[in-house]
């Protein structure tokens, strides 16, 4: 299950970060921020890749000692999704992660198309988005 879900703007500032448990929120912020390095690397590497390899899902960013694996995803609008997944009791397949990202992307798109959202602002007041993220965090994939 996801323990942290982050949406990061083109310009690399966080549009949305949520993590459980909330107490070490800071740790997750650092974690997500550093993982942007790898995201960038992968994106630039992908640029050269062939079309069929240029999928939005970036795969595992890097493993960590604790069970928290970070996965990356980048929309065509250069918005990055980073998801930290706790794999202690379940080994998630790539496809499961992929589908989680798809869900995230879909509801991010909805946010973008929401008249009350101004592109580039932090995503703060979208209940729909929140609940979707919550679902990703509680559900054991």
């Amino acid at each position, binding site marked *: 299950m996801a323990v942290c879900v982050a949406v990061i703007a083109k310009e690399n500032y966080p549009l949305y970060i949520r993590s459980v448990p909330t107490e070490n929120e800071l740790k997750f912020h650092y974690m997500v921020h550093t993982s942007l390095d790898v995201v960038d690397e992968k994106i630039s590497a992908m640029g050269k890749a062939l079309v069929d390899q*240029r*999928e939005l899902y970036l795969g595992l960013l890097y493993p960590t000692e604790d069970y928290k694996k970070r996965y990356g995803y980048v*929309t065509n*609008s*250069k918005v990055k999704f980073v998801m930290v997944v706790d794999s202690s009791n379940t080994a998630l397949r790539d496809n499961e992660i992929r589908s989680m990202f798809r869900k995230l992307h879909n509801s*991010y798109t909805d946010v973008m198309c929401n008249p009350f959202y101004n592109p580039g602002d932090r995503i703060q007041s979208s209940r729909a988005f929140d609940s979707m993220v919550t679902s990703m965090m509680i559900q054991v994939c």
Partner: protein
Amino acid sequence: MADEALFLLLHNEMVSGVYKSAEQGEVENGRCITKLENMGFRVGQGLIERFTKDTARFKDELDIMKFICKDFWTTVFKKQIDNLRTNHQGIYVLQDNKFRLLTQMSAGKQYLEHASKYLAFTCGLIRGGLSNLGIKSIVTAEVSSMPACKFQVMIQKS
């Protein structure tokens, strides 16, 4: 994209709406174009987010422009751009010989003086789309005989 007829009619109403409000002095008259363009910008941002949701990642700028001319245009205007030209220095010219928003208005020079009103929104649409794909640009337009028109995209290198 909604039913195109609906889109066309809605667009027309939007244009006249903006210009009416200008007459009532709510918008200062010169800004109408800008106002429409800004509307388009926001719409473009949203649209592109949707349209690119399931596409492969773009290789480069040209790749993106092609997308705009093909997929994006088709979804919005039910046809592709007829001709895309570029100087490879960040200037692109998109030529549509039968631009959807002009076809029902006139064939030739009638109403030519009003044509630009009906291009502003689309200019914004393009600019918004591109900017959301991380390309800052300036989009201008030109009509000499309706319903054909040209959009010029100037990329801002930054």
